[in-house]
């Protein structure tokens, strides 16, 4: 066990983690500038998880959240277990070979999103009674008013909002890693996990982007259904 954790960390990992945290926060702010309806605040975490392993990913996620909390938005602080689980799960998926082509990366993003939704639910319910300071709480509030139980309302909200964000995150992280020179990747603990199978096909990428667009439309449709009646 300890050995398995240790093999996630070499000197390059330790140097990458602070930079990945910086990337998480800086990209999160670029997204705010562009006013896109996603967070994309865990790209660095997913990159560390894929290149170095689940434990390094979990550490990056947790630290990134804590530092985001103390430096930018104190409300982010209690959510560090979610960020840690995102890193851990992304690392596990990469270990199982799901970080090698576009469709597999979409699957990784989806699994990460489900994990994030499940981990964030107890925090939202116990700490905030279901209503957090985030914008998506409007959906939760509406579901609560329609008579749904608190757990199902919070879980449905996360299932609606998380997948698009996490799949996009995983795809951007994949694109970045594929753009790095082989020599750089070779210095990290798990370079074999991110080796693309049969090249990175353009068509595959378009299909993957298509999947995300369909998901966005689906979420928007569900949202209209929920809020409309």
């Amino acid at each position, binding site marked *: 066990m300890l050995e398995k954790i240790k093999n996630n960390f070499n000197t390059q990992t330790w140097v*990458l983690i*602070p930079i990945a945290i910086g*990337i998480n926060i800086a990209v999160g702010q670029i997204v705010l500038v562009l006013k896109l309806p996603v967070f994309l605040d865990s790209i660095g975490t997913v990159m560390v998880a894929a290149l170095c392993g689940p434990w390094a990913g979990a550490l990056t996620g947790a630290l990134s959240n804590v530092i985001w909390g*103390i430096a930018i938005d*104190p409300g982010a602080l209690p959510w560090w277990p979610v960020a840690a689980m995102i890193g851990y799960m992304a690392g596990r998926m990469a270990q199982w070979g799901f970080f090698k082509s576009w469709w597999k990366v979409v699957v990784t993003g989806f699994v990460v999103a489900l994990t994030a939704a499940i981990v964030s639910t107890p925090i939202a319910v116990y700490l905030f009674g279901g209503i*957090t300071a985030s914008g998506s709480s409007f959906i939760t*509030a509406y579901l609560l008013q329609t008579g749904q139980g608190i757990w199902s309302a919070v879980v449905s909200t996360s299932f609606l909002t998380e997948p698009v964000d996490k799949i996009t995150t995983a795809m951007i992280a994949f694109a970045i890693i594929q753009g790095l020179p082989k020599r750089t990747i070779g*210095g990290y603990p798990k370079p074999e996990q991110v080796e693309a199978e049969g090249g990175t096909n353009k068509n595959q990428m378009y299909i993957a982007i298509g999947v995300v667009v369909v998901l966005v439309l689906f979420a928007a449709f569900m949202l209209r259904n929920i809020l409309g009646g």
Partner: protein
Amino acid sequence: MHERLSFHIKRDSFIHNLNPLTKLVLTLTLILIAFTFPWYWTPHLLVLVAIIPLSLLGKVFREFSVTALRLILPAAGFLFLMQAFFQPVGSDVIFKFYFLDVTQESLMFAFRNAMRVFVMVSAFTLFLVTTHPSELMSDLTRRGLPGQFSYVIISTLQILPQIIAKSQTIIAAQRSRGLDTESSFFKRAGSLIPLVGPLVFGSLMEVEERAIAIEARGFTSKQTKTSLHEIPDPSFDQMLRWVLVALIILSIALNLWLS
């Protein structure tokens, strides 16, 4: 631009001179008691009897109240409004707003939650203001925290302002070349790539250089390292820590016993 992200204010006070670990335990105690002690008015009372006196004792009351009013209070206030409106508990409706009811119970609930968050963030702020990050890290390393953790925390605090400055530069540069960051959704989504790409690749190129540099300074060496600064840990600090831990246990036990 700050050279390093740090909130530390150098003063000579009772709180500043405490051992960093004691201050960390104190912070955690305040947060855990605010969240677990079963009495309704606990977080409110903590602000009066702990947070404010501690900021006076640490001679940072003025700076602390500015931060509290400008940053912490708005965040807690927003949470209060969200919860007061959206929490569907209770039946004693005070007023209605479309489909939302504000009840006495939801107001009470929201008030306590907002105060809990206020205590949490204030305690952390006080801790950061009175403790220098490198002091905390060298003390924890001396107590057995792996040196790599200290490296990650300290260098994140150093790198973060640089990366944020870099991203501002990239946004400005790409805008001046005519990049569209304001029009339709698809245009804005498309602008993500020319902004994120240079930022990420530019930052990642430094990794290898830095790795070699710290490797050359014995980063992974197993030898015990000596420290330039000695951080005092008097017996008063040790005693205080045990008292605080006892308070945490008491609060959690009461919470479990009464629920």
